[in-house]
């Protein structure tokens, strides 16, 4: 009996304190918003969210990654207010959204160059788009064929829920040909995050993977890429992406459900403002105004 009484009192006090805590924070005045999607831009969006909350402390903005596909699924299932994406929404997804009474509205917020990362001890420096395609479809399987050591290439890709995965597939593997059915080779390793690709590349001299430009640093090497054999090779940096010379770059998007209002509108406005776009550059992406 005593145990029951004590636990009941404990329960009551927990309920009481949790209530009082939320009302202290502003109670009914708190406006909360969920942003979900691309892992590539999750850091950028997080910075924006922090700034918006700084300006208006009664806002409560949650930012979670998971991949662009995850963001769209959440927007369609109405579990988030804004989907962040590193690819355009697919026709299939728009249709499914409309079925559920959601009209996705698109905002382009910046550009990103996809870097091809290899280990810093790897002698290879340059690759063409065609070579990349052959590598990821396992037609080229040995580093020797592209000027490296006689070792098997370990291909690192992202999971299929990643916008980066989709963009790379459509842009590099399929040459933007909608009818093409080309796929990543089954032996490609599907890594759960860009960080995981970075980690494997930094410790494995035979690995090769694609990640957002923001991941380039001194522990890994980014290859310069040419559109074809006769073109010049360009290194993935903001300048080359801005001028459109680096061949693997893509737009980044936010999607809202219907015309935005309230806190959602405020967030989008901030993202497109001068200050918001400066943060785009600071987080190693390319602002849209620059194009």
């Amino acid at each position, binding site marked *: *009996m005593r145990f029951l009484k004590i636990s009941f009192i404990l329960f009551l006090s927990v309920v009481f304190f949790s209530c009082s805590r939320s009302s202290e924070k502003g109670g009914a005045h708190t406006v909360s918003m969920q942003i979900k999607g691309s892992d590539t831009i999750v850091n950028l969006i997080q910075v924006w969210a922090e700034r918006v909350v700084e300006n208006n402390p009664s806002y409560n903005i949650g930012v979670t990654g*998971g*991949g662009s*596909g*995850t963001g*769209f*699924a959440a927007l*369609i*299932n109405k579990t988030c207010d804004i989907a962040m994406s590193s690819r355009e929404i697919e026709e299939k*997804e728009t249709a*499914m959204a409309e079925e559920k009474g959601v009209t996705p509205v698109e905002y382009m917020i910046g550009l990103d160059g996809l870097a091809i990362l290899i280990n810093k001890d790897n002698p290879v420096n340059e690759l063409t788009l065609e070579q990349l395609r052959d590598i990821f479809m396992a037609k080229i399987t040995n580093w020797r064929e592209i000027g490296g050591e006689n*070792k*098997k*290439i*370990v291909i690192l890709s992202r*999971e*299929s*829920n990643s916008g980066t995965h*989709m963009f790379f597939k459509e842009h590099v593997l399929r040459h933007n040909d909608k009818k093409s*059915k080309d*796929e990543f080779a*089954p*032996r*490609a*390793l*599907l*890594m*759960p995050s860009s960080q*995981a690709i970075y*980690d*494997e590349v930094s*410790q*494995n001299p*035979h*690995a090769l993977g694609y990640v957002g430009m923001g991941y380039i640093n001194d522990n890994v090497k980014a290859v310069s890429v040419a559109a074809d054999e006769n073109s010049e090779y360009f290194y993935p940096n903001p300048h080359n992406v801005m001028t459109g010379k680096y061949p693997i770059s893509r737009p980044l998007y936010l999607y809202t459900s219907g015309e935005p209002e309230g806190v959602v509108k405020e967030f989008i406005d901030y993202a497109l403002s001068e200050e918001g776009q400066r943060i785009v550059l600071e987080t190693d992406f390319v602002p849209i105004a620059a194009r």
Partner: protein
Amino acid sequence: MKRKIDSIIEAIIFVCGILSIIFVALIFGFLLKEGFAFFKEFGVIGFITGDLWYPTSDPPKFGILPLIIGSLFVTAGACVIAVPIGVMSALYISEVAPKGVRDVLKSFVELMAAIPSVVIGFVGMVTLVPLVRTIFDIPTGLTAFSGSIMLAFMAMPTIITISEDAIRSVPWSYKEGALALGATKWQTLHRIVLRAAMPGIIAAIMLGIGRVVGETMAVMMITGNAAQIPYSIFEPVRTMTATIAAEMGETVRGGMHYRSLFAIGLVLFLITFIVNFTADLFLGKTKK
């Protein structure tokens, strides 16, 4: 007053007991509903024997043979490592170790069981994966073998604690009898104690296997997740659990991809059911 409280508490306990049955039934029913909706459209045989897994491709390919084999490789590898070490260690703890050592060992085994699987996965990714790559001179350390080693760590506490209980509950009279007949300590251990405790040890192994088959986070981080049919344990594999976990977030409720993941869940459920069922059969046999 006391009677009343008694009956109220009895009612509460009854509801709690029934609740777990209801939950299991509901979960199973949901799995069946979504899984069968998928099988109706795609067919069972193509699903289980197909060797290409491209769920977001157009048209999608839902072949889970590589995933089944992937799960099998990782589980088998983990068993080969965890079972001998686990059973030996249980034998040592319950029969050989002096009391001080036994207490320390037991608490460490329990501590091992408390390590979250993400942590095991992370540690494996940073330490074991590069090691496996350099030692075996293979292209990448993200392989079924690395997954097996880390999963063996997770199965070991289960195997050790339950086998130890089984070994300890072997009656003293058995051992006394064996020793009195002039058997050495080792002969007593492996001819009498191990044999008498066998049903419990097998139950322990089965529970360990259950944990390994269902483990998700650690395998997702260290097995490489390549949906290919592996020809050796030193190749990357993609397990069924990792596939469900990695792809669940992107699917739209009610779509084919969403349902295919439930179908995988159904296959997984079936496999664990068969494991438990054979364990039960075996246990029944040995008891007689």
